[in-house]
């Protein structure tokens, strides 16, 4: 019961769009919370493509991508938790939840 190919294309396109939006926001936004959210949106885009891949296979829904998505969510959750704690520490140390302009530090 392969899904209707048009639906499948929508999943893949939306996933790719989310991924690109995430990359854009990660580069453009300066507030760390927005950057962390951007990474999560990139992750959601990837998971959506993966779900599209799972539904598009021959002979029914493929379970392996589902296992990958679940593992991926766990990894993304841990990374987000670390990032949020680090953001709070940066805020506590500098008073700003953003990174200083990059350049050759001394």
């Amino acid at each position: 019961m392969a899904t209707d190919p048009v639906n499948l294309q929508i999943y893949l396109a939306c996933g790719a769009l989310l991924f690109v939006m995430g990359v854009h926001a990660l580069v453009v936004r300066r507030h760390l919370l927005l950057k962390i959210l951007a990474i999560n949106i990139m992750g959601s885009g990837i998971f959506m493509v993966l779900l599209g891949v799972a539904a598009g296979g021959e002979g029914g829904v493929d379970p392996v991508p589902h296992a990958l998505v679940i593992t991926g969510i766990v990894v993304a959750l841990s990374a987000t938790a670390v990032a949020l704690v680090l953001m709070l520490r940066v805020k506590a140390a500098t008073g700003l939840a953003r990174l200083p302009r990059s350049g050759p530090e001394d």
Partner: protein
Amino acid sequence: MPSTAFMADVILAPWLVIVPLVGALLAGLWPATARWWGLLTALATLVLALLLALQVHGQGPVVLALGGWSPPLGIALVADGLASLMVLMTAGVGLAISLYALGYLGGTARGRWFWMLWLWLWAAMNALYLSGDVFNLYVTLELVVLASVALVALAGGAAPLAAAMRYLLVSLLGSMAYLMGVVLLYGAYGTLDLQGLGAQVTLSAAPMMAAVLMTVGLLVKSALFPLHVWLPPAHGSAPAPVSAALSALVVKVSFYLILRLWLMVFPELTLPGLDLLMGGLAAAAVLWGGVMALRVSRLKQVVAYSTVAQVGYLFLLFPLLWAAPGGWQAVVFFAVAHGVAKAAVFLAAGTLQQAAGHDRLAELGAVMRGRLKTSFALGIAGASLVGLPLTGGFIAKWLLVQSALEAHLWGWAVVVLGGGLLAGAYVFRLLGPAFEPGPGDRGRPLPAIMEWVPLSLALLTIALGFAGTPALALLARTLVGGGG
């Protein structure tokens, strides 16, 4: 299943992950005795890594399906020549870093966290080297990132925290790009297994996009010029054992992954111009890293920019990969030689910094003259970075130049030699203050081990000068894909 033929003898690969992981748990549960758990784990892991290298050298690649589940569903550990050499390098440098950390951190509160995170990082790196499928590689890559970021943040203070944050964001961007590549590969071929993918990948759109995403994602993580800006602050501001672990070991992780992918999964994708592009970036990295290392004013920053330059050499891999059959082995030997030398330099720099209380290069002369063992270590390891004879760096560059010349790639050979001149300049700049006239000063009292460990590592770079043949023999037992 070809895997059953290799299942003879002792099973070592899982223990290389389990032992550091258990060590990390014990260090976390009993923080007061964390350093002794750390030391015990480091010793045990080195023994296991040596045994694994001997086993692979003796009977070829070892493939192990965990829990008896074969690759399409289960997780396979693959120990071949390349993987076991990287595990061995990690274990050797790791033991040195652990011994050094005993003296550097002592029993401080910061030290307790260090041991748990460091052993966790070690377990993650070993798991990555031994993974046989692209998704496991993603998970272990993330473990490596989270542990290294936490280690950078250990230093506390505004600058290290900002460096850790930038490092985390950049690394996550790289991981996400890599994961998207994994998804595309799975979508196209329905398997995650490296060998399975390698047998199927042909020159077409999906694997090409996957290759670009994965390679760019990993390049960000390995800090190839112009994606290197996060590296000097992160490596320069971390505590010395952490700087050494990051520069010597963690940078090699993403390099290894790129090499593994192009050896096993993408060998059929000979994209025109890719070798020129990557070689160009590599040359730019060698040049830029070298010039910046000559300009910055602090010891650890010089060493960190030297890593930017040396990462450039690693990516001469691409011009060599298709043109010279043994070229990638020369690059791997270079990675190992750099790992040992860079760890020695960072640890020596840490000793000098602790003794003097700062690391402003211009004012370090007295301490360098007072602590001759450490300055000597800095000199020998620096000679290996330059590639002077009798060191591992010399053999590595010799092999690089040889394979470049055999393939008639004169230009890349010139890059290797020119980079050596630049490295010579910044290593002499590092050592310069020691040769100024004036009295010596030992600075603050430090545990003796903080002088002996950099010196031993520096002597190990000389031993590596004689290890070319066994290392290449081990690398010959590497699984390569393609041709399917």
